[in-house]
């Protein structure tokens, strides 16, 4: 009991110094948590991918389309369960800053492959009936205040012209990593409009989304699909949905790595601050540690006092920092709109914050504790605090 009393009272001896150190911890661990969550958000699409879904795209580049008739050929490959055409639309809603992902899809097969998009049956039927109908995610609808029946005009970029849509269904997240900031509409509407406006661009598909019956055969099925189109005018590249998503992330991986490095630099700076605090603390109390040793307390007791104080300060700072990560993260996600569709502080992030706090506390206290434990009593008694 005395041990913990000593640690607590020692920690509160210099309230300003301890307060500033705790504040440093709060800022550092809050920043660390948010930066780690940004990194997680970057990979959220890949983590939300299902193992039984494949993506087939043009082997040359994602921006080079595939012929529509590939759909039937892919469907005929053994092991393929469902195939849906999909195109990235990239329209602008009111102004470019209102970015959100938009896809033209084969509605029935596409949504059958994504059970994590929870759509009310009557709304989905209404969407199927309306060629200009759209399915939007809950987060996207909330961001722009859309309700069922609202008209949504988009200005095309890849597919020029003005496009009119009507919100017919709003989907909710079936899983934590489900992105509810997306906008889906009928691929047929896109194709028919393009046939009228630019006939050469009709019957062209960005990607085929495929589901397979046996996950274990996904690699073999991918190979079989690509084999079909080898030496054709549009060779394909088929990969799992996760690999496809990671491919996207890899294009911006340098940013992700930079964010990750910065998050650990913040922790390293905190380590330097904490090490300085503990060094000052121990130096000031050297005569007290020598007195304890003279009274018969072992060196391990003295070093445990320093480690304990360091852990107490780090614990309080980290606890507040972790506690604030959640509300600040929510606020940050709201400010970012649909830029980060899934922005949630994960258990891994909290565990990493706690592990870093313990590491900082232990490393910062290591040298002062060693010095205090090893100091000769007669020298320590001469030390002026």
């Amino acid at each position: 009991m005395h041990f913990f009393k000593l640690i607590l009272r020692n920690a509160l001896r210099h309230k300003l110094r301890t307060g500033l150190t705790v504040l440093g911890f709060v800022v550092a661990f809050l920043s660390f948590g948010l930066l780690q969550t940004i990194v997680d958000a970057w990979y959220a699409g890949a983590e939300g991918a299902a193992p039984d879904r494949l993506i087939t795209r043009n082997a040359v580049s994602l921006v080079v389309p595939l012929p529509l008739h590939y759909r039937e050929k892919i469907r005929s490959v053994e092991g393929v369960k469902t195939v849906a055409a999909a195109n990235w639309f990239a329209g602008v809603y009111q102004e470019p800053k209102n970015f959100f992902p938009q896809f033209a899809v084969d509605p029935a097969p596409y949504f059958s492959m994504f059970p994590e998009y929870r759509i009310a049956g009557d709304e989905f039927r209404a969407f199927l009936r309306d060629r200009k109908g759209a399915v939007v995610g809950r987060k996207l609808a909330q961001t722009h205040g859309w309700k069922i029946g609202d008209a949504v005009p988009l200005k095309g970029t890849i597919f020029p012209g003005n496009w009119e849509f009507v919100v017919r269904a709003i989907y909710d997240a079936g899983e934590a990593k489900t992105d509810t900031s997306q906008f889906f509409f009928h691929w047929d509407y896109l194709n028919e409009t393009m046939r009228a406006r630019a006939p050469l661009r009709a019957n062209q598909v960005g990607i085929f989304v495929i589901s397979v019956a046996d996950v274990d055969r996904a690699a073999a099925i991918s190979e079989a699909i690509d084999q079909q189109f080898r030496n054709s005018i549009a060779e394909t590249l088929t990969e799992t949905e996760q690999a496809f998503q990671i491919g996207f992330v890899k294009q911006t991986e340098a940013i992700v790595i930079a964010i990750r490095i910065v998050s650990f630099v913040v922790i390293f700076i905190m380590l330097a601050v904490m090490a300085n605090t503990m060094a000052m603390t121990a130096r000031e109390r050297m005569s007290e540690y020598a007195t304890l040793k003279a009274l018969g307390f072992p060196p391990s007791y003295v070093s445990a006092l320093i480690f304990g104080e360091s852990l107490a300060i780090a614990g309080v700072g980290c606890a507040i920092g972790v506690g604030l990560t959640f509300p600040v993260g929510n606020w940050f996600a709201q400010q970012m709109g649909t830029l980060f569709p899934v922005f949630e502080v994960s258990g891994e992030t909290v565990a990493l914050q706690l592990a870093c706090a313990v590491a900082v506390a232990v490393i910062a206290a290591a040298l002062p504790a060693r010095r205090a434990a090893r100091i000769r009593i007669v020298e320590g008694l001469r030390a002026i605090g």
Partner: protein
Amino acid sequence: MSAGPLVEIRNLSKSYRRGGQVVPVLNDITLDIPAGAFVALMGPSGSGKSTLLNLIAGIDKPNGGILRVGGVDIAELSEAELADWRAEHVGFIFQFYNLMPVLTAFENIELPLLLLRMSTADRKRRVETALDMVSLSDRMEHYPSELSGGQQQRVAIARAIITDPTILVADEPTGDLDRASAEDILGLMDRMNAELGKTIIMVTHDPSAARHARTVRHLEKGVLTDE
């Protein structure tokens, strides 16, 4: 406990290494201190009196000679054994009191008892008795910063006697006190020696403080000069 002197010192020497040079501090000291003695060690600064006290208290180690306290050759003990030995046999009174500023008078006095197997109730009883002996029962909840120098030194004395040690070592116990407080502390040490039979070894450069001791030994340049 042996039948001979409580502290038995034979040809004791101590030197320090400073900048590659060996600086002798104590040379060939031979001294016996019987149980129940009140000895003052006097001498000018640098004479080695505090070093001799530190060696007897087991917080420093000699380079040569024999140093037995209560029949135990403490120079042969390991650091851990020496810590246990100090906890059981030595009470310390320092010039600057060396109290823990974050602990109350009660908690400071209780500190050495934490190293012994003792119930909370027993510890409380002993601390209250010690506080009563040093007339500080009404100040038990006070922190050192709320006490005068004389009161802090009385807390330190209570802490020194709380484990009923074999010897009390005091290094300039009145060096930081005014005359009245110094007399108060020396009177208290007299009582510890006379009424409780405590063996006290005190380092002082103050002749009026030394007069309270039953025996006064002088050191000069690391040698006992009054043999």
